[in-house]
């Protein structure tokens, strides 16, 4: 039982991790917490599903199309809503993303209906035996993709000029601007990249959770929790945080009570925030006046 619980917990955690990476990416580059991330992923997944059913392109082609589609969705959203808010207080951008959440949520239901639908998977439905636990191939795919995306983004932020410029822009926008960093462009790129990642995330999750306009609600909350656990600015931290949440949630559901699994998961977050407000995996940032 325990190995099965651990395996499904890790599979579940990797679902959260994939979305958490997008959250951290936007936050790292623009200092905005995007509450609409889950709904944008859901919206993009629906758009891909429409492409899949209307054009009968094979699934791998649609998966590839998801990247430019996600970039487009992210860039357009940034241009229309975040651009004008750039000089406003940060809380305005936060409220705007909550508005976007509602807009994407209800627009998707309005366009594509409210029935959950089955979404095809890239992987065979036959589960694989790992140390006695039966794991869906789709879940292994999600774990692989989240690790890959994490590594690529990590390299991007640490070792490319653009990545370093992004980090600089989020830490001190004015100073970065004075150093010749194009802050507007950075925000666009971050939103485009993050949305592409989250649409791919939606495509990978949908075969497990079914495609549904509510599919991302609890995923987003858990992704937030995992990202906070990891410090919200650390990509590896977010992934580990999400995996921890997935596993803890599953263990509590099995050994304590299914009714309390969310409560316990979020209880842990509160405890962490009390004793390590900077998260488990990032160093405390000391601001000098």
């Amino acid at each position, binding site marked *: 039982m325990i190995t099965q619980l651990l395996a499904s917990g890790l599979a579940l955690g990797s679902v959260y991790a994939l979305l958490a990476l997008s959250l951290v990416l936007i936050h790292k580059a623009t200092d905005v917490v995007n509450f609409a991330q889950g709904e944008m992923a859901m919206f993009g997944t629906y758009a891909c599903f429409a492409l899949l059913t209307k054009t009968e392109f094979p699934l791998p082609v649609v998966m590839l199309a998801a990247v430019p589609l996600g970039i487009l969705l992210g860039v357009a959203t940034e241009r229309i809503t975040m651009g004008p808010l750039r000089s406003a207080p940060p809380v305005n951008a936060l409220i705007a993303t909550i508005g976007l959440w509602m807009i994407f949520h209800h627009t998707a239901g309005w366009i594509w209906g409210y029935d959950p639908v089955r979404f095809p998977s890239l992987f065979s439905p036959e589960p694989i035996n790992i140390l006695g636990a039966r794991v869906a191939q789709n879940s292994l795919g999600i774990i692989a993709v989240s690790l890959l995306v994490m590594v690529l983004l990590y390299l991007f932020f640490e070792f490319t000029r653009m990545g370093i410029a992004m980090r600089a822009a989020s830490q001190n926008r004015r100073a970065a601007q004075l150093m010749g960093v194009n802050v507007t462009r950075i925000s666009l790129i971050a939103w485009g990249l993050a949305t592409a990642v989250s649409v791919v995330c939606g495509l990978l999750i949908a075969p*497990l*959770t079914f495609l549904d306009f509510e599919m991302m609600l609890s995923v987003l909350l858990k992704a937030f929790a995992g990202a906070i656990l990891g410090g919200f600015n650390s990509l590896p931290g977010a992934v580990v945080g999400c995996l921890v949440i997935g596993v803890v*949630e599953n263990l509590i559901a099995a050994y304590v009570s*299914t009714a309390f699994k969310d409560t316990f998961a979020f209880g842990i977050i509160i405890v962490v925030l009390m004793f390590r407000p900077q998260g488990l995996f990032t160093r405390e940032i000391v601001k000098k006046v």
Partner: protein
Amino acid sequence: MKRTREKLLSLALGTAFGLIGAAHAADQGITKDQITLGAFLPLQSGLAAGATQMREGAEAYFKYINDNGGVNGRKIEWIVENDSYNPQQTVAVVKKLVDRDGVFAMVSTLGTVTAVAVLPFLAQRGVPIVNPAGGHELLNKPKDKNVFAILPLSSEIGESMADYAVQKLGAKRVAIFYQNDQFGKDQRDGAIEALKKHNLKAVGEASYVPSDVDVSAQVVALRDTNPDVVVLGIIPKHAALFLKEAQRLGWKPKIVGHNTVADPVVLDLAGPEALEGVYVNLMTAVDTMDTPAVKKANEILAKYYPKTKPGYYPYLGMAGAIIIVEGIKRAGPDLTRVKLISALESLGRYETGLVPPIEWNATYHGGPRSFGYAQWQGGKLKVLEGW
């Protein structure tokens, strides 16, 4: 001069009182050639899929009646408002329906808390409400004179499922998986009660909340209690999640599920293999039932809403429509709310063919107390027991 003024005044007063008088004689929402009915449905919410199907089932029947001359020469207009499953919104839209649109009665609404929130208002105004679909004593075993239930109490469904597991499937070890709200908990409580009667206890219990996207931990926990039968008090999406997860683990207990597991959505989501052999409690018809009533309902639905698959929600919506039309017909041409209520109370044992027989009388307005059972076989529902 004085005379003219008096005449005008009496004319004006006469018109005013005349209108009020007329409204009392025939009640609001009734004209020479039209009856206005209303409903509140959560058309934008987690229950939106069911709400839409429910609306289409009822609407199809009203259209069919209207195309065939209406009821006693009157056409039916059914005004549906969305309440987003938010009781505050329900209160607002019901006030609008009753006070502004002047509906005669409400029929085929969906939502438990939302309906409970507006019952006092509807009772105070004496507006009949037929088929408030939900799971609450006030809705399924109503005390109010104006409320008529088509659905049984959730606890009675749970009881029936546990009885079926023990008596028909010979279960000694029964586990329960349920939705953690009143809809699911009442079924759980009913099942536990029924098990007690058979001197049994539930060997395992697990629950989920509707926003859950994964039930793997619950499935593993239940599997480890080693039950013969798992009772599901559940909605279609989570039934599909449960069945797929059990399939992945290679775990094949006998399963008895709530009527929602008969929904074609479950077949679409889980696939025929995962559903194979699952028993389903029936409190509405299934589309494969070979009866004239079901065939007619399928034809009506196919004619007016060809995209909507027959199933739990369309049948439930349509059953409400059939019964209110029958009540209106029997209440006669001088229709009033009081007459509709007594007509519904005097229906006797009434078969719509889409839900188990209704047995309302002056003191009992509750839902049916008998159920059918079916089994999923090769992607089709086979009816094992009628009601």
